[in-house]
């Protein structure tokens, strides 16, 4: 069987995405299975991302597999000047699948060409993080019952946000309408808007979340970071405008859910946490089921 890797969400057809999401639902019902017994998975985190690594390791452990790897490259052979090529060639001998996170863009695609085992990209710099997108899709599907005809509101840093770009591209496979809420400096880049336009999908841009929050099915929050602004005064002006407060939810749709890739800093007020529209912690748990589904698919076990 040909080895498949998951480097970019575009590596999957829509049918494959649906199949993995169905499988994730199966794992949610029955998360502890012994299908990875005797298998070893490498988690190579060339830069730290505790949340993502723990999610992958939990997924593997629940399926009876073993994990080896490193959590940051500062105390491994990488700092001694080993090339990525050599690291992957070596690790490839020991494992059945490689999960890697690396700060350099394109590193995962390169690794997938070198390795003979499947490679899962757990983030390559500002480029791709497909398992995040898959868990976002799973969360949307699970809470809304469909991926069709939804209105998705993306809030915060839409200019540099890798997760929102990737989610936009993925959701554009269905009939989705988008609201983009961001300060002027961090608006959605033109290339993505053009992409939607060419597909005949609708979008609306605003700087005011209150203007659109009541019409949306999903509010996808991201963090507005100070260092993204060329002028610090601009940041001071807008920083509180992109914080979600409990009282903003009063008139929102009953089935609306709030997602966030986490970690959160202050962009969602903690008083939102107890509202049943808050979904970000369940979303993180969905990451385990989704990753179980992706790993078992790539290994040809399901």
């Amino acid at each position, binding site marked *: 069987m040909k080895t498949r890797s998951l480097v970019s969400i575009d590596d999957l057809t829509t049918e494959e995405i649906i199949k993995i999401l169905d499988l994730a639902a199966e794992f949610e019902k029955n998360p502890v299975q012994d299908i990875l017994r005797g298998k070893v998975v490498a988690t190579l985190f060339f830069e730290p991302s505790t949340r993502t690594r723990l999610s992958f390791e939990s997924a593997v452990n629940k399926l009876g597999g073993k994990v080896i790897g490193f959590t940051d490259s500062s105390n491994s052979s990488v700092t001694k000047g080993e090339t990525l*090529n050599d690291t992957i060639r070596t690790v490839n001998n020991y494992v059945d699948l490689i999960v890697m996170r690396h700060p350099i*863009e394109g590193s995962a695609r390169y690794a997938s060409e070198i390795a003979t085992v499947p490679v899962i990209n757990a983030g390559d710099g500002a480029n791709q993080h497909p398992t995040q997108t898959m868990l976002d899709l799973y969360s949307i599907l699970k809470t809304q019952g469909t991926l069709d005809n939804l209105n998705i509101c993306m809030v915060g840093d839409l200019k540099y946000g890798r997760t929102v770009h990737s989610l936009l591209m993925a959701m554009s496979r269905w009939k989705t309408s988008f609201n983009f809420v961001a300060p002027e400096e961090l608006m959605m880049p033109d290339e993505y808007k053009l992409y939607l336009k060419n597909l005949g999908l609708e979008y609306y841009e605003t700087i005011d979340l209150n203007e659109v929050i009541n019409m949306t099915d999903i509010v996808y929050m991201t963090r507005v970071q100070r260092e993204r602004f060329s002028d610090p005064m601009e940041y001071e002006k807008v920083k509180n405008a992109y914080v979600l407060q409990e009282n903003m939810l009063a008139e929102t749709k009953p089935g609306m859910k709030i997602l966030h890739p986490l970690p959160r800093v202050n962009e969602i007020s903690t008083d939102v946490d107890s509202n049943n529209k808050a979904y970000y912690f369940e979303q993180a748990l969905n990451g385990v089921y989704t990753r179980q589904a992706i790993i078992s698919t790539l290994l040809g076990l399901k």
Partner: protein
Amino acid sequence: MKNINDKKQLLVSAIESGTVIDHIPAATLFKVIKILGLDKIKNQITFGTNLDSKTDGKKAIIKIAGKFFEDDDINRIALVAPNAKLNIIQDYKVTEKRVVEVPDTIIAIAKCMNPKCITNFEKVTTRFRVVSKKPVALKCQYCEKITDQERLEII
């Protein structure tokens, strides 16, 4: 008595059989030589550069005796010499004229403009999908960023 045409004639003197590549921008002559690997073959090669051209400013011309190119090979120069014209010579006569076309994929020729791309850190053969031919826009197979005509650099 020699006139200006004779001079030109000298620079582009005839070959019995082979390929003449004309309308190369003078500035990219050596890139064309490198891309086609002309610095590594034993064929007789003559070239002229900084020649006046009605259409291209200063142009260059290369004549390679006994050498014929496949389309896939010659199209590799389209990035640096988009208006190049080929004359295929047999028995001192032009038997065929060809133009170059930007191919759908560009392998091992261009440099990715993204400084954070793996191809700029490790010895990786660059690969691009051509997303636009005029003006040229290349999508890196690795970092997925676009390198456009303005930022195009030949390795």
